[in-house]
């Protein structure tokens, strides 16, 4: 029994779809952010897996993942700053109550 590429892709897909589900259904902004991290993580995993199985001699995928992790960290930091700010303004973190800027 070989651990081929598909074996690693299946958990990645599950992770991704769980993220999608969470993003569509949750209302708490932090929960949304968590779902986002799940999706990002699955993408990272994909990079790595593709790098390893399709282009084993290079390290591009790994470098991209590294950057993605760095960017994810930055993004999370800013997002949380915004969420806290919104919380100060309106008293909760419910995504449906933030509509002022829609048009």
């Amino acid at each position, binding site marked *: 029994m070989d651990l081929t590429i598909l074996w690693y892709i299946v958990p990645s897909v599950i992770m991704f779809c769980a993220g999608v589900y969470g993003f569509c259904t949750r209302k708490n902004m932090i929960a949304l952010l968590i779902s986002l991290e799940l999706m990002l993580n699955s993408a990272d995993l994909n990079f790595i897996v593709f790098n390893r199985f399709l282009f084993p001699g290079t390290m591009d995928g790994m470098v991209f993942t590294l950057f993605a992790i760095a960017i994810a960290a930055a993004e999370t930091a800013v997002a949380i700053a915004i*969420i806290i700010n919104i919380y100060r303004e309106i008293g909760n973190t419910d995504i449906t109550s933030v509509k002022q800027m829609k048009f």
Partner: protein
Amino acid sequence: MDSVANIILYFVVALCIAIFSVLTVTSRKILRAATYLLFVLIGTAVFYFQLGYQFLGAVQIAVYAGGIMVLFVFSIVLTRRPDDVAPLLDSHRRCLGICVSVAGAVLLLLAFFFMPLLDGMSLTQCLESGKEINMDTIGNAFLGSGRFQYLLPFEAVSVLLLACIIGGVTVARKR
């Protein structure tokens, strides 16, 4: 033929990831969701180790499981009491979410399974055919400006991070 240990490790981690990621998005307590996310991230890190990217796995644990999770927990604690329970989802939303995610999953899996390109080597073969990526290689790649070297993206990311720090501080600052 991969070693049995590898296969067992794989199944444990894959199951762990699948279960915890579902739990992450279905849990009604936000602090628990964060904890489940931590497990998923650690599981991913284990995959990285297994695939031979030790440095990446370390970074994953340090940055994600360490830094980002702390941020999450702090913000959760700041914005609500930890034992707050999210209201039950209305069936319409849940149904829609399930539809979208299941349809996406089915589609993606179908795509992957039917793509002949992906039917390739086993993990062991890959690990053997690829050369070892040690810290020396990574360091040279990041600080060189030649072919397959990443000085410019590295600098860009560092500027980005700086911008994020400033942005985060500016946004969250009390007026």
